[in-house]
C-alpha cells in the first residue's frame, strides 16, 4: 500500500501551485525603488588586446548614471576558483586572474568590457553603442590539442602555457599499466567527444543589488543555487566586505542545472555599483547573454582503452582526456574533470588497474563548469561506450559482459580513490530487464523493420557519487570550502514548524519532500511543517544545492536537528506526565508513557516550551535546534538504463521509442518527485545525445548562440519513460539511508542512446564504431554512408 503522507508518500508538490499560477517570486520580479539598470558591453571577438576604451561620449548621454571599465576594478579581487587541483608532478594548477570587467585582454565572445549604469536599460544600451573600443584581434585558441602544443598562442600571457593542470589518478606506474595492456587478450580503444552544452535554465540569470548608506548594509537578490556560498565568495575574495553587512537572497529560481552554483562577475558588479552609484542596480540577462556568459558544461575529448583477459574480465583501463575550462576558471570548474570525473572511472566494475589522465585547457571560449552530473556523465559515457564497443568486437552480449565484471562485494575500494559503501548491480539489472521487457525486443525490432526502420537497443550502467564529502577529505583534495550542510528546526508555540535549511530548491521539490521527513518523525501532518530557504538572513550557513546532495546532506542535518527537538520535547513531556524521560514514546504526534494510557499531545508540549509555567527547571524554554552535518562518505546511486531507438535509414533521423531506467537511490522519501527528477535528467541526457551542440568556429564565434541553432529537447523528442526504483540498497552512513537522484538521469542516459543507435546501425548491416554526440540526422546519415 503506498503511503499517503510522510516518508514514502507521493505528496503533491506544494510549491507548484505558486509556480503554475504565476505567483512565484523570481529575481526579475524584484524591483527596488529608484533602481538603475546595467548593460554590459561584451566582447564580440574571442581574443584581443584592449588598446583603449573611450567612454567619454557615453558618459554624457541621457540617463547615464556611471560608466565602469576594468580600471574601476583594479583594486578589487577577481572571481575566485573554489578548488585547487594539484597536478601529477605535485605542482598547483595555473590559476590566472578573472577580473569583473576585462583588463588588458578580452578572452571570449561575451567577456564583459564596459558596464553602463543608466536610468533605463534602453538608455544604457544607447550609451554602450557610443563607446569607442580599440581592440586588436589576436588568434583565437579554440582546439584543445593545438592549444596544448609548445608555442601555441597564450590565452593568459602570464601563464607558461594553456594547460591549467596535467592531472593523474589511479595507477601512477606507467610501466605497470603498459604491462597490463601488453598482456591483454583483447584491447578495445575508442576516441570520443563529450559535447559542450549550454545549460539554458528557463529563467536567465538576474541580479539586483541595493546598498543602504544609513546602515552600511548591502542586499543582493540573485539567481543562485547557494546564497551563502555566493555571500562568502563575494565578501571574502572579491569585494572585501564583512559578511554580516551583506544579505544574499536567492528567491524562486527557475532552474539551475549547475550553472547557477557559481559566483558570477555580474552579481559582484551590481553589489559594487550599488554603493558606487548610491542606487540599486539591476541586471537581467537576455537569452543571448546567457549563451555567452553562463558557464557551459562538459566539453571533453578523450581516448579510452579497455584491456580484457581471455575470459573477458576487465583487467585494465586507461583514459586520456583533454578537458576544456574555457577562458577563465569558473568557481568549481577545476574539480569537474578531476575529482568528479576521474574518481568515477571504475564505474560498476571491478577493473583492478585504472589510470586516468586529464589535461585541463584554457581556450578562448566561455568558461566551463559543472552541469547536471558534472564529470560523472563524462566518465560514464567513456566507460559505457568502450564496454559496448568491446562487446561488439568480442561478439558477446553487452549485458552479460557487464554482469560478469560487476562489483559484488561491499564495501569496495576502487583503484580511483572511492569506497562504494553499498549497491546491488545485478539486482538493479534484473529490475531493468523486467521493466524494459528486454525479452520482447526482438519482436519490437521486427515491427520496426516491417516499417522500413532500423531498431536498436542500448543498455548501460552508471554509478555516481553524490553529496560530495567529507570536508576533511575534500580539503585534502584541494576544495577551498567545506561540504557539510545545516538546518534549524524552529518549533512554534502552537506546534507548527519552520525548518531553515542551507539547501536551496530551484525545482527539486524540497518544500514538499523535506516536510515529509520532519512530519513523519514527529507524527504530525505535513502541512504543519514549512521549509525556509534561499536567504542568508534567515537560514544557517549551508552550502546550497548541487551534486544531488540536498536530502543526503542537508536532509541529514534536518533529521539531526529534529532528533534534538524531539529529545528536548520528551523532557518536557516527561515533566508534564510526571514520568521518567526514558519511558516517553513519541508516536502520531502524541507523547505517551510506555505501558500506560497516559499521554500528552505534540501541541501541548510545544506550547509548554514557550509558556513554561509548569516546566522542568533544568531545561531551557523554547524549542529550536540547529544541526550541522558533515557526511562520512559520498553516497553512490547506481543504475541500469535501456534505450530503444528507431533510425530512418533514408534520413538518419533517430527517434527514441522506449526508455527505461532502473535506479538504486536507497530509501525514497517522495517517489513521485524522484520519478520527476529522473524524467528531467533523462530528458537532458537525450538532449545531449541527439540535439544539443554548443559549437564554436575556429575564430571562437559561437555558432549555436540562440535557440535557432542550439537544439533543446522538446516534449515530442522524448518518449514516455519507464522508471523503476524498487532496487534499494540504503546508504549505510546517513540517517535516512538516501543517496540522491537529481543527476542520475543525465548521467545514465547519453550512453544508452548512443549504444542504441549503434546497435541499430550495426545490426542493420552498417559497420559503425562510434558517432559523436549530438547524433543529429546529418551525422547519423553521414556515418552510415561514410
Amino acid at each position, binding site marked *: 500500500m503506498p503511503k499517503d503522507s510522510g516518508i514514502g508518500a507521493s505528496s503533491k508538490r506544494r510549491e507548484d501551485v505558486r509556480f503554475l499560477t504565476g505567483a512565484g517570486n523570481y529575481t526579475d520580479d524584484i524591483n527596488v525603488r529608484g533602481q538603475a539598470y546595467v548593460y554590459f558591453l561584451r566582447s564580440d571577438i574571442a581574443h584581443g588586446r584592449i588598446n583603449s576604451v573611450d567612454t567619454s561620449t557615453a558618459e554624457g548621454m541621457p540617463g547615464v548614471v556611471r560608466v565602469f571599465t576594468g580600471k574601476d576594478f583594479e583594486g578589487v579581487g577577481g572571481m575566485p576558483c573554489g578548488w585547487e587541483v594539484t597536478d601529477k608532478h605535485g605542482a598547483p594548477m595555473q590559476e590566472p586572474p578573472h577580473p569583473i570587467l576585462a583588463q588588458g585582454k578580452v578572452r571570449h565572445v561575451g567577456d564583459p568590457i564596459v558596464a553602463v549604469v543608466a536610468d533605463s536599460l534602453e538608455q544604457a544600451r544607447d550609451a554602450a553603442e557610443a563607446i569607442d573600443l580599440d581592440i586588436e584581434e589576436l588568434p583565437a585558441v579554440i582546439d584543445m590539442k593545438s592549444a596544448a602544443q609548445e608555442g601555441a598562442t597564450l590565452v593568459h600571457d602570464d601563464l607558461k602555457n594553456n594547460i591549467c593542470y596535467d592531472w593523474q589518478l589511479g595507477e601512477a606506474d606507467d610501466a605497470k599499466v603498459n604491462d597490463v595492456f601488453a598482456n591483454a587478450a583483447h584491447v578495445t580503444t575508442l576516441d570520443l567527444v563529450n559535447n559542450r552544452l549550454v545549460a539554458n535554465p528557463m529563467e536567465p540569470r538576474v541580479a539586483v543589488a541595493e546598498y543602504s548608506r544609513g546602515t552600511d548594509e548591502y542586499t543582493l537578490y540573485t539567481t543562485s543555487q547557494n546564497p551563502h556560498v555566493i555571500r562568502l565568495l563575494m565578501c571574502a575574495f572579491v569585494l572585501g566586505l564583512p559578511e554580516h553587512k551583506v544579505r544574499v537572497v536567492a528567491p524562486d529560481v527557475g532552474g539551475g542545472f549547475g550553472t547557477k552554483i557559481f559566483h558570477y562577475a555580474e552579481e559582484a558588479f551590481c553589489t559594487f555599483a550599488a554603493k558606487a552609484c548610491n542606487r540599486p542596480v539591476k541586471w537581467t540577462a537576455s537569452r543571448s547573454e546567457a549563451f555567452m556568459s553562463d558557464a557551459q558544461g562538459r566539453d571533453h575529448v578523450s581516448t579510452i582503452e579497455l584491456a580484457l583477459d581471455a575470459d573477458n574480465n576487465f583487467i585494465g583501463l586507461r583514459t586520456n582526456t583533454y578537458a576544456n575550462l574555457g577562458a577563465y576558471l569558473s568557481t568549481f570548474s577545476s574539480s569537474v574533470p578531476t575529482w568528479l570525473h576521474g574518481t568515477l572511472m571504475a564505474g560498476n566494475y571491478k577493473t583492478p588497474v585504472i589510470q586516468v589522465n586529464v589535461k585541463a585547457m584554457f581556450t578562448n571560449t566561455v568558461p566551463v563548469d559543472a552541469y547536471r552530473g558534472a564529470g560523472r556523465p563524462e566518465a560514464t559515457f567513456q566507460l559505457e561506450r568502450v564496454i559496448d564497443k568491446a562487446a561488439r568486437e568480442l561478439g558477446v552480449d553487452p549485458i552479460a559482459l557487464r554482469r560478469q565484471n560487476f562489483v559484488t562485494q561491499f564495501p569496495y575500494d576502487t583503484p580511483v580513490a572511492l569506497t562504494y559503501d553499498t549497491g546491488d548491480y545485478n539486482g538493479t539489472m534484473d529490475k531493468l530487464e523486467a521493466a524494459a521487457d528486454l525479452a520482447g525486443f526482438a519482436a519490437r525490432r521486427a515491427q520496426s523493420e516491417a516499417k522500413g526502420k532500423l531498431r536498436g537497443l542500448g543498455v548501460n550502467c552508471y554509478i555516481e557519487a553524490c553529496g560530495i564529502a567529507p570536508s576533511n577529505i575534500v580539503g585534502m583534495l584541494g576544495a577551498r570550502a567545506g561540504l557539510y550542510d545545516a538546518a534549524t528546526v524552529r518549533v512554534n508555540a502552537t506546534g507548527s514548524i519552520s525548518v531553515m535549511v542551507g539547501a536551496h530548491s530551484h525545482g527539486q521539490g524540497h518544500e514538499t519532500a523535506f516536510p515529509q521527513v520532519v512530519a513523519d518523525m514527529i507524527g504530525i501532518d505535513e502541512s504543519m511543517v514549512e521549509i525556509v530557504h534561499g536567504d542568508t538572513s534567515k537560514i544557517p550557513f549551508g552550502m546550497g544545492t548541487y551534486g544531488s546532495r540536498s536530502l543526503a546532506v542537508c536532509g541529514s542535518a534536518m533529521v539531526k536537528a529534529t532528533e534534538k527537538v524531539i529529545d528536548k520535547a520528551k523532557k518536557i513531556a516527561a515533566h508534564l506526565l510526571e514520568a521518567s524521560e526514558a519511558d516517553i514514546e513519541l508516536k502520531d504526534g502524541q507523547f505517551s508513557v510506555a505501558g500506560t494510557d497516559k499521554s500528552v499531545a505534540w501541541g501541548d508540549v510545544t506550547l509548554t516550551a514557550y509558556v513554561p509555567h509548569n516546566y522542568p527547571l533544568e531545561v531551557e524554554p523554547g524549542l529550536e535546534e540547529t544541526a550541522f552535518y558533515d557526511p562520512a562518505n559520498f553516497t553512490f546511486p547506481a543504475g541500469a538504463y535501456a534505450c530503444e531507438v528507431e533510425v530512418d535509414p533514408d*534520413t538518419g533521423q533517430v527517434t527514441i521509442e522506449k526508455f527505461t531506467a532502473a535506479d538504486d537511490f536507497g530509501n525514497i522519501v517522495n517517489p513521485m518527485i524522484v520519478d520527476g527528477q529522473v524524467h528531467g535528467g533523462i530528458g537532458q541526457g537525450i538532449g545531449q545525445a541527439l540535439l544539443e551542440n554548443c559549437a564554436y568556429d575556429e575564430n571562437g564565434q559561437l555558432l549555436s548562440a540562440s535557440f535557432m541553432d542550439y537544439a533543446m529537447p522538446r516534449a515530442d523528442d522524448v518518449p514516455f519513460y519507464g522508471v523503476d526504483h524498487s532496487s534499494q540498497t540504503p546508504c549505510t552512513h546517513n540517517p535516512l539511508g538516501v543517496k540522491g537522484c537529481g543527476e542520475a538521469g543525465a548521467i545514465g542516459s547519453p550512453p544508452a542512446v548512443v549504444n542504441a543507435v549503434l546497435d541499430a546501425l550495426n545490426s542493420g548491416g552498417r559497420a559503425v564504431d562510434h558517432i559523436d554526440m549530438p547524433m543529429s540526422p546529418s551525422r547519423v546519415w553521414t556515418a552510415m554512408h561514410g
Partner: protein
Amino acid sequence: MYNFEFEKPSTIADAVAALATEDAQALGGGQTLIPTLKQRLAAPSKLVSMGGIAEMQGVCVDDDGSVSVGGATPHVAVARDAAGSYPALAALAGQIGDPAVRNRGTIGGSVANNDPAACYPAGVLGSGATVVTNARQIAADDFFQGMFTTALDEGEIITSIRFPVPQAASYQKFLQPASRFALVGVYLARFTDGVRVAVTGASEDGVFRWSEAEQALNKEFRPDALMDLRINPANMIADLHGSKEYRAHLVSVMTKRAVEACM
C-alpha cells in the same frame, strides 16, 4: 529596440501612404521583424501594421477555382480555412513554428521576408501562385530572387496571394532540429499540365524549382522516376545541421516522399 513611429491603417491605400515615409516598414505578425528590432539589427522610422486592414484578411475561393489568401492572414487561419479548398497548403501552414508563431505570423510577412528555410516560399513557388501587391501581380517564378530577396519594391505591400489548385500536392518538411524551420522542404504540386517541385531550406540561392525532377515526373509520375536523379550539392547550404551532400540527399528523399503522398 530603437524608437519608431507606429501606424495601424485600415485600408491598403492608407497603408501605402503611410509607407511613403523614409525608412518606414510594413509590420505583419512581427515574428521575424520584432526579434530583429529587439536585437537592434534594424532601425525603421515607422512601422505600419497590416493587422487592421480587413481586405487583407482571410482565405477565399475565386470563381476560377483558385484560392486567394489575404496578405495579412495568419498561418493559423490558412491551416484552418484552406483545409477544404487546398489541403496541402493548409498542411504547410499548420507545420510552421508553434501555435504562438502561427497565431501571429502572416503569409505576406513570410513571403516578403523570403527566408531561405521558410515554408511558404516553397508552397507559393511550387503552386505557381501569383503574388498580388498594391501595384501589380507578380508570378511566383519572378518573385523569389535569392535568399531574403524578392521582386518587391520599397513600400510595396503583398495584399494577397492567389494559388491555382493542383490535382494533388504535398509538402514534405524535414525539420532543422533547433529552429524547426525546414532543413529541407519540398513542395510538389501536380497539375493537369505538369508537375512543379519547389525546394526550400537547401540552397544558398533560396527557394528554387528542381526542374530535372519535374521533367522526370512529367514523363512518369512514380517515386522511381527520381531514382537516378541527384541534385548537385555545390550550391547547397552547409552549416551545423547538415553538409551540402546531406541536404542534396534530403532533397531527393523528400521529393520521393512527396510523390508517394500524391499517388
